[in-house]
C-alpha cells in the first residue's frame, strides 16, 4: 500500500499530529505547491556508484591543479591556491551549482540558505578564518583589548532564539519559565563544567576543544571523552534535569544530527566549550548572513574556474602528476595536472581515487540524512503580542523532532511582509534505514510534514505560503558518534602526495571551520610541492 501524506506526518512528527492534520479543501487545508531540489544524489549514484567502466578519454586537457568538489573544502582549497599565486586551477562539481551542503538560493524577497547557516566568530588563533572574513569586509575593527569586532550587520541579531512550548514562545533555547531550583542548580553545574573545559590547556598550550578541531589537545583525558556518549557523560555527573537534557539533545541534533545518547561526549562538549574563549566568557558571537554560509561560498567561489555538472570517475597518480577522468555535460573529459585536491566525502573518494580502491577499507564514516525545506511566505502569520516572545532568528518547537525554522529576513531587519523560513529536520537514526523508510516521499509529502510542524505554533500559516522547496540530503553530513572523533581520526596527510584529500569527514564534525581547515591544508601541501 502506498503511504499517504498522513502516514509520513505520523512517521516524522508522531501520530497525534498526523490525526490533527487536515485533508484537502480550502486554503487552510491545502498543501502548498512544492518542488524538490536536486542535491546530486541520483546523479552521483548513476554516474559514480553504478557506472560499469569509466569513459574513454581521447583528448586530454592540462591544468595546474584540479579540485574535485565545490563544497566548502574544495572552494577553500581553490581560494588558497589563488591566494598563493597558483593559477590555472580547475574545480569540478557534480551538481549544477557550487556550495555542497552550504548552498543557497535567492528570490526577489531575500537570499536564503539550503543548509549550514552560521559560523562562530573566530578567536585570535584562527588567523585564516580572520583573513577570510577580512577579505569579505566582515570585520569592523578591534576593541580595546585587541579582540576582533565582526561587522554588526553580520552578528546575529537579537533575539537570536526562541522556543515554542505549550502555546507560547519563550526567549532563548533553554526554557527558564517554570524551572525548579534543582533545574537551575543543574544548569549552573553544567555551565561550571563547560567553564572548566573552556579554560583547560595541556602542557603545550593546546585547548581541549579548539576550532578547528585539529588544534585540540590529544591528551588522554580529553580523548577519553570520545569513548562515552554525551548522555552518559551527563548521567555520570547527575545532570538529569529534563530542561538541561533537552538542551543537550537539541545541541547535538542541531550541529550533528544525532541525539545526545549517540553523540560522542567530546563532540557534545565541543559544541559548548569551543565557542567560549575562556572560563566565564560569553560565547563568541554567531556570524550569519541571510543565505547563511552560502555567503561564504559566494566569496570563496569568486574568481574560481568552476565546471559544474561534471561527474568524476577516476583520479590517479601518474609520473609527474595526476590524471582525472570525468564525464561533463559535453561528454568524456580528461585533465592532466600537477596535483589534485579530492574534496568529496570518504565514501565517494573510496570509489574515485585509484590508490584508495581495493585497499583495506577505511573506517566507515557515519553520514546522517537531513531534510531542509525553504518555505516562501507572502506574509508572516500574526504573533501573539502579550506573554509570548517576538520572532527570532532561530525559532524552535520544543516538542518537535524538527529543529524549527530560521528566518532569512531577520538579519537584514526586514520584520514584515514576505520572507523565507528555512526548516530543518535531521534524522538522528541510521541513515540507510531512514532512506528506505522515506522511499516514495516526494515534495508534496514533505511539504505536508513541514506545514503540520509549523502549524504547531502558527495555525493557518499554510494560507500564507506561496510555495515550498525541499532538499533531501541523503548523506547530509558526517556524524560524531561515540568513538568517532578520535577513534576514526585518519592519519595526517602525506604532504608529498599528489592527491590530497580534504573533507569534513576527516574531523567527524561537519562544520564550516573543519572543511575550511582541510581545504587549506590540502592547498598548502600542493603549494609546497609546486614550489
Amino acid at each position, binding site marked *: 500500500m502506498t503511504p499517504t501524506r498522513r502516514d509520513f506526518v505520523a512517521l516524522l512528527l508522531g501520530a497525534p499530529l498526523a490525526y490533527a492534520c487536515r485533508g484537502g479543501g480550502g486554503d487552510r487545508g491545502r498543501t502548498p505547491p512544492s518542488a524538490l531540489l536536486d542535491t546530486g544524489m541520483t546523479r552521483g549514484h548513476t554516474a559514480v556508484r553504478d557506472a560499469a567502466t569509466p569513459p574513454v578519454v581521447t583528448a586530454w586537457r592540462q591544468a595546474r591543479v584540479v579540485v574535485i568538489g565545490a563544497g566548502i573544502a574544495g572552494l577553500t582549497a581553490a581560494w588558497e591556491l589563488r591566494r598563493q599565486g597558483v593559477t590555472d586551477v580547475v574545480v569540478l562539481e557534480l551538481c549544477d551549482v557550487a556550495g555542497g551542503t552550504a548552498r543557497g538560493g535567492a528570490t526577489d524577497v531575500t537570499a536564503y540558505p539550503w543548509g549550514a547557516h552560521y559560523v562562530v566568530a573566530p578567536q585570535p588563533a584562527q588567523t585564516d578564518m580572520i583573513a577570510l572574513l577580512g577579505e569579505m569586509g566582515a570585520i569592523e575593527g578591534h576593541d580595546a583589548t585587541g579582540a576582533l569586532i565582526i561587522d*554588526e*550587520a553580520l*552578528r*546575529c*541579531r*537579537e*533575539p*537570536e532564539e526562541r522556543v515554542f512550548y505549550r502555546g507560547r514562545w519563550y526567549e532563548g533555547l533553554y526554557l527558564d519559565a517554570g524551572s525548579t531550583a534543582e533545574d537551575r542548580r543543574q544548569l549552573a553545574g553544567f555551565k561550571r563544567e563547560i567553564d572548566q573545559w573552556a579554560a583547560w590547556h595541556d602542557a603545550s598550550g593546546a585547548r581541549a576543544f579548539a576550532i578547528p578541531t585539529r588544534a585540540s589537545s590529544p591528551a588522554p583525558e580529553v580523548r577519553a571523552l570520545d569513548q562515552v556518549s554525551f548522555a552518559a557523560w551527563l548521567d555520570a555527573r547527575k545532570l538529569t534535569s529534563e530542561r538541561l537534557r533537552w538542551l543537550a539533545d537539541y545541541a547535538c541534533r542541531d550541529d550533528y544530527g544525532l541525539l545526545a545518547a549517540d553523540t560522542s561526549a567530546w563532540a557534545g562538549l565541543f559544541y559548548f566549550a569551543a565557542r567560549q574563549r575562556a572560563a566565564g566568557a560569553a560565547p563568541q*558571537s554567531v556570524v550569519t548572513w541571510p543565505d547563511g554560509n552560502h555567503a561564504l561560498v559566494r566569496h570563496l567561489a569568486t574568481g574560481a574556474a568552476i565546471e559544474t555538472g561534471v561527474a568524476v570517475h577516476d583520479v590517479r597518480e601518474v609520473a609527474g602528476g595526476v590524471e582525472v577522468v570525468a564525464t561533463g555535460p559535453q561528454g568524456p573529459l580528461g585533465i592532466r595536472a600537477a596535483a589534485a585536491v579530492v574534496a568529496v566525502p570518504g565514501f565517494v573518494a573510496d570509489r574515485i581515487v585509484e590508490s584508495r580502491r581495493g585497499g583495506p577499507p577505511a573506517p566507515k564514516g557515519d553520514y546522517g540524512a537531513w531534510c531542509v525545506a525553504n518555505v516562501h511566505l507572502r*506574509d508572516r502569520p500574526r504573533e501573539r503580542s502579550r506573554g509570548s516572545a*517576538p520572532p527570532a532568528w532561530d525559532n524552535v518547537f520544543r516538542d518537535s523532532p524538527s529543529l524549527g525554522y530560521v528566518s532569512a529576513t531577520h538579519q*537584514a*531587519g*526586514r*520584520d*514584515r*511582509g514576505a520572507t523565507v523560513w528555512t526548516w530543518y529536520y535531521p534524522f538522528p537514526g541510521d541513515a540507510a534505514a531512514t532512506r528506505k523508510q522515506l522511499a516514495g516521499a516526494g515534495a508534496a509529502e514533505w511539504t505536508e510534514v513541514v506545514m503540520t510542524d509549523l502549524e504547531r505554533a502558527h495555525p493557518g500559516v499554510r494560507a500564507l505560503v506561496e510555495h515550498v522547496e525541499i532538499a533531501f540530503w541523503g548523506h547530509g553530513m558526517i556524524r560524531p558518534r561515540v568513538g568517532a572523533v578520535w577513534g576514526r581520526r585518519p592519519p595526517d596527510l602525506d604532504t608529498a602526495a599528489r592527491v590530497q584529500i580534504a573533507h569534513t569527514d576527516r574531523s567527524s564534525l561537519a562544520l564550516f571551520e573543519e572543511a575550511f581547515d582541510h581545504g587549506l591544508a590540502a592547498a598548502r601541501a600542493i603549494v609546497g610541492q609546486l614550489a
Partner: protein
Amino acid sequence: MIRAGALYLNVFVVAICGLVYELLAGTLGSYLLGDSVTQFSLVIGLYLSAMGVGAWLSRRLDDTDLARRFLDVELAVAVVGGASAPVLFVCYGSVVHFQLVLLGFVGAIGILVGLELPLLMRLLEGQMTFKDLVSRVLTFDYIGALAAAIMFPLVLVPKLGLVRSSLAMGSANAVVALWGTWLLAPKLSAKGVLAVRIRAALVLAGMVVALVMADRFTSWAEDEMYADPIVFSDNTPYQRIVVTRGRAGFQLFLNGNLQFASADEYRYHEALVHPVMMAADAPPKKVLVLGGGDGLALREILEHPSVEQVTLVDLDPAMTGLSKRFPALAELNHHSFADPRVTVVNDDAMVWVADHPALWDAIVVDFPDPNTFALGKLYTKLFYKRVLARLAPGGAMVVQATSPLFARKSYWCIQDTIAAAGFSVHPYQVTVPSFGVWGYALAKRAPFTPPTHVPKLPLRYLNDDALVAMFQMPADMTHVDVEVNQLDNQALVRYYEREWRRWE
C-alpha cells in the same frame, strides 16, 4: 390581560437605548468631523423629527398582529442601534461621506423608536383609562432618558467605550424584546410567539457575539486605559493605531504609546525639526524623514522656504493614509501630505536606507520609542551608520530619543550609540506637558556648535532663548554609563523596558 407594570420597565429600557444611540451618534459625529455644536444640533434635530415620522407612520400599521409588529420594531432598533457605532467606526477610516452614513443611522433609529411608543400605547389601550396610560408611558419614557443621560458619560463611555456601549444597548433592546414575547403572549398567536422568540434569540446572540468580537475594535483594557474615548482604531499588520478625542483635542497612540496630543504637539515638533534645519551648514534643500507618519514633522519642515524635496519613509501605509485623509489629522499637519514636494515611501527604514544611496541635507529620525526588538533595530549603531552614509557632508540629523528623565539610561544609550556610529552629537530636551520631559539628539559628521537662532517663521514655542536652553541638561538628566546599542545585544530595548516599568 397583559402585565402592564412589566411593560413600563420595557418602555424605560427602550427609552434609555434610544437616547444612548442618539448620544453615540452625536459624540462620534463631533469627534470625527469636529464642530460639536453643529453635529449635536443635526443629530438631535434629525433624531426627533425622525421619531415624528415614525409616530406618523405608526397609524399605517393596522391592529392585526400588533404585538408581533411591536416586537419586530424593537428587534429592528436592537439591530440598527446596536450596529451603529461599530459600523460608523469601520466607515470612519474608509467612507468619504461619513456624515451621510451617520445621519442615515440617526434617521433610521429615530423612525423605529418613533414607531415604538404609539404601538405600545395601542397594545395597552383598553387596559386602563387613557389618562393613566399616557401619564405612565410618558413618565417611564422621560425617566429613561434621564437615566441614559447620566449613564452615558459616567459609565458607558469610560467603562465600555463607544463600540461596546452601542452593542450593549443593542443587547438590552433584544433582551427586552425577548422578554416581551412572554409579556405579550396573550396577544400573540402560538406560531407567532415562537417565530418572534427565534428572531429575538438570534439578534441577542448576534449582539453578544459582536460584543465578544468588539475586541477587534478596542479591547476592554483599552477602553479603561485611555482617559478619553476612542474615536478611531485600526489593527494594521504593523501596529495598533488608536485616536482618542477629549476636551483638550485629540491624541494619537501607536501600540498604546502616546505619539502626540494636539494640544501641545507643537512643542515637540518645533523642537524636533527647527534645530536640525538650523544646524545644517546651508539651509537644507533635501530632507529625509524616517518615521513621523503623522505628518506633523513634515508640517514644520515645509515651513522652511529652502526645502525643495522631502521624502518620508514610514512602515505603515495605514498610518500615512490616516494622516492624509483623517480630517482632524490632515488639518493639524496642514495637509502636508498633499504638498508636491513630499514623497511618501512605505518601507522599513532600516532596509530602505541601506538600499537608497541619495544624500540628504537634513535627516529627521522620529520613530516610536524602542519598546520592541523590531523597533530596537532602528536605534542600533548599524542603523545610524547607514544613516550617516546618507547624510550630505554639511548635513545634520536629529533623533527623537525618549525621555532623559523617565528613561535616562535609554536616552543616553541612544546618544552614545549615535556617537559610536561616527557622529558628533549634542543632546537636548524640551518639556511637552502630555509627555513630560522629552529628549532628542542633534548630530553631524564633524564637531559643531548647536544653533543659537531660530528661523524667521511664525513659531509658537521656540525662540532664541528657548533654543539655547534646550541644550542645557539639568543634573538629573546628565550622562550615565551605558552600553552601545547593537544588533546583537539590543541593549536599548532592555534598558527601556526596565526603566518604563517603574512608571507604569
